[in-house]
């Protein structure tokens, strides 16, 4: 296909990378939006998820939340924040994306803490650990793989979805795709799509490695098991 060779021509031109509003600038903006959104999402989602998982309550609520979140189009949330008083700053997409980072982190963290063997918790208590110590020294290390899965799923989703912020005028890698459509130049469109897909996959690989590094106990090969949020939720839904 012609568009693919055009895409490589576009990507091979250094000016397209370093020029004003070039790929490097757009990728930086893209990562800034995604990074801030993840930060907010984690700050909002982790404490209640850990608490609910520790207490073993709220499963139905979290399941419902993650199901509802699936029905709300990202595009709509992005647009709605932009037309409030937040306006056309970087914060409209950041908050919108943070909203979408919350459900996978919540659900996975909750499940991770719930699935910690009750005997382990009892043993930790019997050793004289306080509630806080049980959470951070016994439950957290054991729940970490699932917690990381949630964070990884959310991060990939946020990086991928940050692309849509370009539809509202925020410079991201989606801007490349849009400008390609605007000029009816499918080479640029494909180049932008390749860039976005590469960034999403790099994020997944990076967090996969991180997850592998922080997991205590026997190390398994990274990237052996990749799970998506939907598959995760699907597993819960099927088990119901």
């Amino acid at each position, binding site marked *: *296909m*012609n*568009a693919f060779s055009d895409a490589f021509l576009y990507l091979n031109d250094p000016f397209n990378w370093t020029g004003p509003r070039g790929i490097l600038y757009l990728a930086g903006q893209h990562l800034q939006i995604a990074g801030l959104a993840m930060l907010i999402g984690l700050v909002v989602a982790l404490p209640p998820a850990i608490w609910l998982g520790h207490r073993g309550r709220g499963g139905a609520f979290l399941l419902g939340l993650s*199901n*509802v979140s*699936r*029905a*709300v*189009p*990202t*595009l*709509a*949330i992005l*647009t*709605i924040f*932009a*037309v409030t008083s937040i306006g056309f700053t970087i914060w409209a997409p950041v908050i919108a994306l943070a909203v979408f980072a919350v459900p996978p982190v919540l659900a996975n963290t909750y499940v991770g803490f719930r699935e910690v063997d009750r005997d382990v918790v009892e043993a930790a208590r019997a050793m004289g650990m306080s509630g806080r110590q049980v959470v951070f020294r016994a439950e957290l290390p054991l729940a970490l793989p699932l917690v990381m899965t949630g964070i990884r799923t959310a991060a*990939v989703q946020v*990086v*991928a*979805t940050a*692309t*849509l912020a*370009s*539809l*509202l*005028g925020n410079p991201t890698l*989606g801007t490349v*795709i*849009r400008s*390609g*459509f*605007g000029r009816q130049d*499918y080479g640029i*469109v*494909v180049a*932008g*799509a*390749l860039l*976005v*897909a590469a960034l*999403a*996959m790099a994020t*997944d690989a990076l967090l996969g490695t991180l997850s592998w590094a922080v997991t205590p106990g026997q190390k398994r090969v990274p990237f052996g098991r*990749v*799970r*998506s949020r*939907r*598959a995760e*939720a*699907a*597993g819960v*839904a*099927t088990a119901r």
Partner: protein
Amino acid sequence: MLSAASGAVLAADAAPNPWFDVSWVGDNWSTIMPLVGQHVRLTVVSVVIGALIAFPLALLARRARGLAAAVLGLSTFVYTIPSLAMFAFIAPFTGLSETTVAIGLVLYSLVVLVRNFLAGLQAVPEEVREAARGMGYGAGRMLLRVELPLALPGIMAGLRIATVSTVALVTVGVIVGQGGLGQVIIVNGFGANYYRPPIVFGTLGCVVLALVADQLLAVVERLLTPWTRQGVAA
């Protein structure tokens, strides 16, 4: 198509811009209804085609473990491609058409459907299969009479999740000018001086469509699995 968003920062000062306006819906009925229709059409077509592809894939994947890994790996890979990029990849081949959007949506729905179909089929207890085999059931009859009914909860769960997420994803089709309610949000709302009623209508429309579709499939599931209710009643 989308360029309207960039050039509309002008006279936003005096015009009223309510969050919700019933009269707007009435006045624009003739333009928004075709878009709602397109939204429903794209969702139904994508999920149906997705299911038709996913079922044989799940059957094949169940037979061979290597194939299962390949199918699941590929579908996970597809899922990491952002929706905007997905439509951008397909557009050079199929242009700014509904086909572009449908192909992208089918690919996304496959991720959910294959996993759930496979999980549903694998959930059939081996003893049940043994028993059916003992009663002289062949492969085809076993699939239709034994495995399929027992796999139905998993299959329906997959269909419901795929449908709900497809409804939300259709909106992104606005990038190729075929976005259903996404068109209402971006073109009628965002592109028209950030006019709020279309934006809110498009958003709520998507959520309502998703919930209605989900409930319809729940009813279908109930009708298809009468034995689960008999068990509860008895």
